[in-house]
């Protein structure tokens, strides 16, 4: 399983990527939405993208819209991981095409539970 972690905070990227790697994911990281699109355009297709909302250059919502406009990438699961916690923001993200939404601060268990809901826990972890 592969995951792309997009966040302008290097620390937060390491935290999220670390949780996913502990679950058996192979990860790559990007510092904003544009960098994330570059990774995808380079042919590395992940099963999961974890993307922050507020970032310079291209924010998470713009990234989600850009990905959803590309038919080849529509099957990819996108999870917003953000401190934007208002209901209206969650609705906006889901309407744009995100599958799940994790509010910062979160625990490793919260990420794991969301992945289980999405059917994205690697088999050896899910058992």
């Amino acid at each position: 399983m592969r995951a792309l972690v997009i966040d302008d905070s290097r620390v937060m990227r390491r935290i999220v990527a670390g949780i996913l790697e502990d679950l058996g994911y192979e990860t790559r990281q990007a510092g904003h939405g544009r960098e994330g699109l570059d990774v995808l355009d380079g042919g590395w297709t992940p099963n999961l993208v974890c993307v922050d909302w507020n970032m310079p250059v291209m924010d998470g919502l713009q990234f989600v819209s850009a990905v959803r406009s590309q038919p080849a990438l529509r099957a990819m699961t996108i999870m917003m991981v953000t401190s934007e916690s208002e209901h209206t923001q969650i609705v906006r993200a889901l309407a744009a095409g995100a599958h799940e939404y994790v509010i910062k601060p979160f625990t490793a268990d919260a990420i794991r539970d969301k992945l289980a809901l999405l059917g994205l826990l690697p088999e050896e972890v899910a058992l």
Partner: protein
Amino acid sequence: MTDSVIDPVDTGERRRRADAAPVITDLIDEATIQSIAEEAWQALVGEEEFLVPLPGDAPDDAVSSWVEIVGPWNGAVVLTVARSTAEELARCLLKEHAPPVLDDEDVEDAMGELANVVGGNVKAVLPGPSVLGLPEIGAAPAAGSPADTCRVDLLWRGQTLTITARGAAGAPHDPSELDPHENEVPL
């Protein structure tokens, strides 16, 4: 008689008061900010990490991180700690992923992320819609009116941590600060 009566001594102050931007102390209290910070600390810093509501000594080498909030209330949520505390926080956030030697970017990044998480959850409590800015690090932005400041003094591992939600400098908050002639049209 139900005819409306025009108050001959209506100065318009009541309307101006209603129109004035809210102050932070009307929107959130210290306990709520502390609760938000505790949740952030336990999720990001460590499950056994606690914040004690006691003031500590002001650090000589303070590091501040903040996020701005723009909306019905304009201001910033600012975290301030000593440099050594910021480094300890960065190590806690990174846990086993922390490099042997932390560089400035790691420390600033960790402080920025804590401000982002605390500020984002403060924003959720405020009336919206509001926009959250990107985290910034350095000398904290100038505070506005003292009446528009909500300050929480805490100790983390015995070290001083101050969190303030402070109105933007220059924003009129007290109706008496408003120019009474601002909206008048010359006859």
